[in-house]
């Protein structure tokens, strides 16, 4: 029993065990330091897992020594290794970042609960990603969701609307979870197993109404969690009114994990031999993805609140991923996975910039951004670079995503879809450009609550934010760790799904 052999369990066990400890600390700095330390340990563990999987192939870990299909299996291939790296990486950046921001936005007495909830949320997200057991996915999804509801509601100290946003999120999220578990029940009825690999084997040749209904329930359930258009209504308010650090963390990870779950169920559990899957691709995922891309982008253009704008942009970006998945090809899958990671990086950085602005100005509406270049140059440039990444300018990760998506469209003989992708990016030019123009070309407000001497955000926020910005640029040039792994992961998923 060496530690290395237990490595796959660490990302779940460590934060789960560590979370209650935050309650023992004196409110203030200690819970934060503890959570940050844990986030780094987990990041190290996940990095080790990624390295191991990349070298040695799929890892199968039997929780408690119970073999599947009875026991719970943690099964890590390149696809979830990639998502693990994203989630733990974003956590390792956002947790240290959170201190000043949380101190300003949340009652200090609540800070142990806050960091505890953050750790539990992290546990849930990592658990969903790592597990190879379908019911376990549901459990961890609820762990992540319940803690998210609480975290969003904590924004109420600065803006009471956080409460309704959290309630909305709670209702929608619970409906999603219910649908998901109903779908799982139907599949269990049809196959008698809940292990994903086992499910796949036993679903072969099963093409009856029950399995189809199960599929539909699962897709809708996960669709709610990942804010698939038109089931995204919970998302804009939740992201806008949550505490800034929570927005940064959840926006970069939560919906991405849900997209991963969708991919996992489509390709690993059902597989390309399941005829209904292609119907879902062509008649649900593709149109919903495309409409989401445009609808949400257009709505984003007219937002007066930067966090809401970024939230709508997230809905649009989810549309890109769904579009990539809907091609049902290896290139499309790779594009979706690449964009999943890349979008996590850019949205994380953007929400962190918004957090810095909120920290100094106490406002996340557009007017707070007027003349920001003169007041907070580092924050401004972080926003500009990650905004350009969102647009897809070369030299950033967004460009790599766009490239993969367009290429996948052409390879799938859907050239028009490639043009829709770039057309929708041009809408991103509008909504990002609008804010950049405010920041750079307007003078700071002369009077009113936003006037006065404003200093740059503290270093403890600037450094983590710029770490993510640097990642946006670095992975825009060196794509071995993102696109390279995504390519391999897509190939593995396709072969397990029984495709080309």
């Amino acid at each position: 029993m060496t530690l290395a052999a237990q490595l796959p369990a660490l990302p779940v066990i460590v934060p789960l065990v560590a979370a209650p400890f935050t309650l023992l600390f004196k409110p203030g700095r200690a819970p934060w330091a503890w959570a940050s330390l844990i986030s780094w340990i987990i990041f190290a563990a996940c990095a080790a897992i990624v390295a191991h999987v990349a070298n040695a192939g799929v890892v199968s870990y039997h929780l408690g020594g119970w073999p599947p299909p009875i026991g719970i299996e943690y099964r890590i291939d390149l696809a979830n290794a990639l998502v693990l790296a994203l989630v733990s990486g974003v956590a390792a950046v956002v947790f240290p970042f959170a201190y000043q921001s949380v101190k300003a936005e949340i009652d200090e007495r609540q800070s142990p609960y806050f960091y505890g909830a953050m750790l539990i949320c992290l546990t849930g997200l990592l658990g969903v990603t790592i597990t190879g057991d379908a019911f376990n996915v549901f459990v961890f999804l609820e762990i992540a969701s319940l803690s998210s509801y609480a975290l969003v509601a904590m924004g109420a100290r600065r803006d009471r609307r956080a409460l309704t946003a959290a309630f909305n999120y709670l209702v929608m999220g619970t409906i999603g979870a219910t649908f998901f578990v109903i779908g799982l029940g139907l599949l269990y009825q049809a196959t008698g197993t809940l292990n994903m690999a086992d499910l796949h084997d036993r679903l072969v040749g099963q093409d009856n109404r029950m399995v189809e209904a199960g599929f539909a329930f699962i897709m809708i359930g996960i669709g709610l969690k990942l804010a698939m258009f038109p089931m995204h209504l919970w998302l804009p308010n939740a992201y806008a009114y949550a505490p800034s650090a929570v927005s940064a963390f959840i926006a970069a990870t939560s919906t991405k994990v849900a997209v991963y779950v969708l991919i996992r169920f489509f390709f690993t559990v059902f597989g390309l031999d399941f005829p209904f899957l292609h119907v879902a691709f062509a008649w649900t995922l593709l149109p919903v993805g495309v409409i989401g891309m445009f609808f949400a982008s257009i709505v984003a253009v007219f937002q007066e609140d930067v966090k809401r704008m970024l939230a709508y942009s997230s809905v649009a970006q989810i549309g890109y991923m769904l579009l990539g998945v809907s091609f049902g090809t290896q290139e499309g899958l790779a594009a979706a996975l690449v964009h999943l990671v890349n979008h996590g990086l850019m949205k994380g950085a953007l929400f962190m910039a918004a957090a810095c602005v909120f920290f100094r100005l106490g406002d996340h509406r557009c007017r707070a951004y007027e003349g920001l270049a003169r007041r907070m140059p580092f924050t401004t440039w972080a926003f500009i670079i990650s905004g350009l990444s969102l647009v897809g300018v070369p030299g950033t990760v967004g460009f790599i995503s766009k490239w993969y998506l367009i290429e996948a469209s052409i390879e799938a003989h859907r050239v028009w879809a490639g043009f829709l992708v770039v057309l929708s990016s041009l809408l991103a030019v509008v909504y990002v450009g609008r804010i950049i123009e405010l920041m750079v070309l307007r003078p700071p407000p002369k009077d009113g609550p936003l006037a006065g001497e404003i200093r740059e955000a503290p270093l403890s926020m600037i450094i983590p934010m710029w770490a993510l910005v640097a990642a946006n640029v670095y992975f825009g040039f060196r794509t071995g760790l993102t696109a390279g792994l995504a390519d391999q992961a897509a190939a593995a998923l396709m072969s397990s799904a029984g495709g080309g």
Partner: protein
Amino acid sequence: MISPELALPLAVVVPLIGFFAIWALDKHPNLREGATILTGVILLILTISVFEAVAGGARPSVFAFDVIVGLPIAFSAEPLGALFGVVASGLWLVNSFYSIGYMRGAGEKNQTRFYMAFAVAISSAMGVAYAQNLFTLFIFYEILTLSTVPLVTHKGDDAARRSGRIYLGVLLGTSIGLFLPAIVWTYAIAGSSDFVPGGLLARHVDQAGPVAGVLLALYAFGVGKAALMPVHPWLPNAMVAPTPVSAFLHAVAVVKAGVFAILKISVYIFGVDFLATTGAGKPILYVAGASIILASAIAMKKDNLKARLAYSTVSQLSYVTMGAMLASSMGVAGGAFQIAAHALAKITLFMCAGAIYVGAHKNNVSEMRGLGRVMPVTFGAFTIAALSIVGLPPLAGSWPKFLLMIGAADAGERWAIAVLVLSSILNVVYLLGVPAQAFYLAPAPTGVKSRGAGPEPIDWGAVKEAPLLCVLPPVLTAAGALLLFFFADPLFCFLAPLAGGG
């Protein structure tokens, strides 16, 4: 002498070092401008060493790293890129002296930001010139767009903001909306985006043949910097920038990067023969012809001198596009020649316009009546450059017209010759009209329109030129336009490999 393999990446890196030096020397204007000039000198030496190596038959190339499999950041020099590199870096140096004179003379603000953005722009122009594949070219093309936005919006007022929006909107819109899909499509067909002598797509005729027309149209309109109508509106809008920006970026680096890309794509991605056999270039050829005439017609109606020059640029750029689309070796040579000749002439015209603004605070052509007697040197340079654009020997501008006409005849497109002739006549009207009024008409008394005043000798006592740094650079470039006429043969030999497919 430095090896050309090293010079290629250094040409991109040196201006970036200059960028940081300028930033660091923010508080010391003289040292800051010294950094700009030093960077310019080093860069010119680098590009000349590359040029010489290419003239000697070498094709230096440097591979940095793969971004995506089959899509590396890589540089290599061939005649077209080497020529563009020398033209851009040489004129940048001249323009840097001019910038110092202009920016100080006009008392502009935020000069450090101005020089910093300039350094990034020239770095990315070098990247465009020496790109070994479309992917690398596209990256630097976009950086060039973004780095010039702060220059266009330099004044920061409402007009600058509006123009900045149009500038960015058109350039990003075309490049992301059309250029990028075209590159990805090419990559999907050919599995790479390398510039290959004879044409990359010519090797994949089966897949590329049916879509050649669509792809070429995507490229022609996607490279918005080539300002083919109707994607030209960014260029007149860019004229709100300080004149050195208009002179260098919007007469040389940015627009030439556009037409350079068009030429490069025609020669190395499609291949001249492939274009000729598929006839894919025909529709674009008509658009280019229409662009030449229409832009000239608009230019005639513009009273603002810089706006007039901008539309003239739109017209002249389409010469290059036309040369590429003729799909004949002479057409390509004419297009390449036009890049150099038009750069020299147009930068002179813009620098003169700036000198007139600094010296006499006049922007409109109608206000320049008689001004030639106050600023004879400036208007003299203006006249020479205008004559070069018109295409009169012995000025550089006569060669591209000559070569393009031969190319048009070779390709059997005789109407194109008529377009070129008509364009020359229009050039006479809207360009030579300016110095004619300035020299022959007496200065208008304030508030009174004078008409038909007879010729008078110049009263040298009244001469009041702009500062030396504003006047000397246009004189130099005008002289360059004259000299280039006599060095046509070496340049033609240098470009000869292009005709053979690179």
